[in-house]
């Protein structure tokens, strides 16, 4: 194949490589018991260490949503409890998962790509393979498994904090008393919304970690390559996250 043909085919080659890597990762799942220690380590890095920033972002987005909903909806003809009925489903259905997703695409995605990218360019991945170790099983599987396990946890944290923030700010700004907010929220709550949100966070966890692992694992070209892989991991994760969001909403709602 000439260099030009390869350039034209590059996006397809990349897609093929991504799915081949995923297939290898799935096959390596059999060895998952061997790497449980790495999984726990990654669960701490990806999950536990992300709680403060996720909680902070959720707190503000919950508070802002409440204030803005109050601003848009409240009139003498609409009961204030409607604010709770609007804020809670939007947090549970969309905000909780998407805010967490975007934050983690930056925080976790960039970290994974930089880590694996550096290991690639300094031949540490080759060293693992040369020892006879499955580098995909050792490096990628723990990260993706930890992402899929911890994302729903972070999503729940985000929802709880966002709703709490909404209640708090609504109450103390005098827009909606806490009791009314909760009453409104309970009246219109559908358990499916929470299931859907959880499913979404699970998919987002997979998308972000898988895309970032791919970008990092196939890094080329020294420090510049690591920089490029890191940026691409964060940006591409966000794009695929939005795409997954749309696909899930269109098929399941």
């Amino acid at each position: 194949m000439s260099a030009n043909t390869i350039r034209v085919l590059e996006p397809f080659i990349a897609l093929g490589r991504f799915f081949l890597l995923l297939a290898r990762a799935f096959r390596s799942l059999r060895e998952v018991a061997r790497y449980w220690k790495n999984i726990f380590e990654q669960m701490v890095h990806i999950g536990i260490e992300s709680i403060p920033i996720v909680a902070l972002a959720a707190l503000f987005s919950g508070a802002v949503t409440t204030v803005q909903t109050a601003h848009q909806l409240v009139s003498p003809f609409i009961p204030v409890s409607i604010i709770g009925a609007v804020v809670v489903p939007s947090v549970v259905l969309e905000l909780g998962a998407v805010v967490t997703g975007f934050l983690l695409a930056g925080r976790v995605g960039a970290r994974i790509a930089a880590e694996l990218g550096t290991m690639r360019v300094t031949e540490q991945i080759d060293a693992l393979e040369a020892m006879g170790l499955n580098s995909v099983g050792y490096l990628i599987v723990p990260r993706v498994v930890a992402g899929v396990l911890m994302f729903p946890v972070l999503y729940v944290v985000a929802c709880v904090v966002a709703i709490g923030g909404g209640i708090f700010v609504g109450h103390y700004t005098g827009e909606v008393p806490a009791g009314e907010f909760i009453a409104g929220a309970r009246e219109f709550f559908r358990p499916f919304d929470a299931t859907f949100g959880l499913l979404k966070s699970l998919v987002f966890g997979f998308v972000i970690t898988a895309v970032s692992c791919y970008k990092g694992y196939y890094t080329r070209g020294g420090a510049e390559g690591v920089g490029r892989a890191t940026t691409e991991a964060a940006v591409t994760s966000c794009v695929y996250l939005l795409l997954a969001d749309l696909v899930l909403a269109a098929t399941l709602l």
Partner: protein
Amino acid sequence: MIQLQDIHKSFGGTPVIKGASLEVREGETLAIIGRSGSGKSVLMKHMIGLLKPDSGIVHVDGVDLNTVSYKQLQMVRRNFGVLFQGGALFDSMNSFDNVAFPIRTFSNLSETEISERVLECLEMVELPDVGPKMPPELSGGMQKRVALARAIAMRPRYIMYDEPTSGLDPETSNTIDQLIKSLTDKLRVTSVVVTHDMHSVLTIADRAAFINEGVIWWIGTIPELHACTDKTLCDFVRANEYQIGEGRAAYKDNP
């Protein structure tokens, strides 16, 4: 025994290896020499299946690396110790854990036995005290020696060295060369050394293979290398000797 037959490999449409055949004999130290970018490391990476040839055959102890399953390839690789160009130490672990890593992963030894083995390996590379140090705290030469300790930790039958002395000062290079020589004698391993440092080649190798224009241009023993008549090879060898000679001359004039 490692055999490469008619290996072709290109990257992004640019051919790098264009039909290279080579045999590494049991117990010998073979140096693969050639200019930068001539494909020396590429050829070495074929021997452990880190790269797959576009066409051609790679045999290690009779196993065809192109057709084996990944599991079998892993088993073949466990006979190898590889010293990568930059050392490739895992920077998330200290030196001790780096050397212990393959032992912990692939053997059922107890922590005491592992610790004994690690110290033994670190002593072989003359760095018994660096265990607690993280890789970035070590100098380039020390990193390579720790990486060498890691490469021999599983008592491999083959050791591959990728540019073991590049980027090191002449004195440290000499130390590394001596180390490779003594390890080869002590451990009775088959070694492949990728290098463009003729001084290393003359010190440690039994045979040398010169790679040029994507093929094995010349292969022979060290005495044969001294007596070579091929112009391209002579130019390469003499460029090195000239450098060494010129350095000596400059030192004599201006000590």
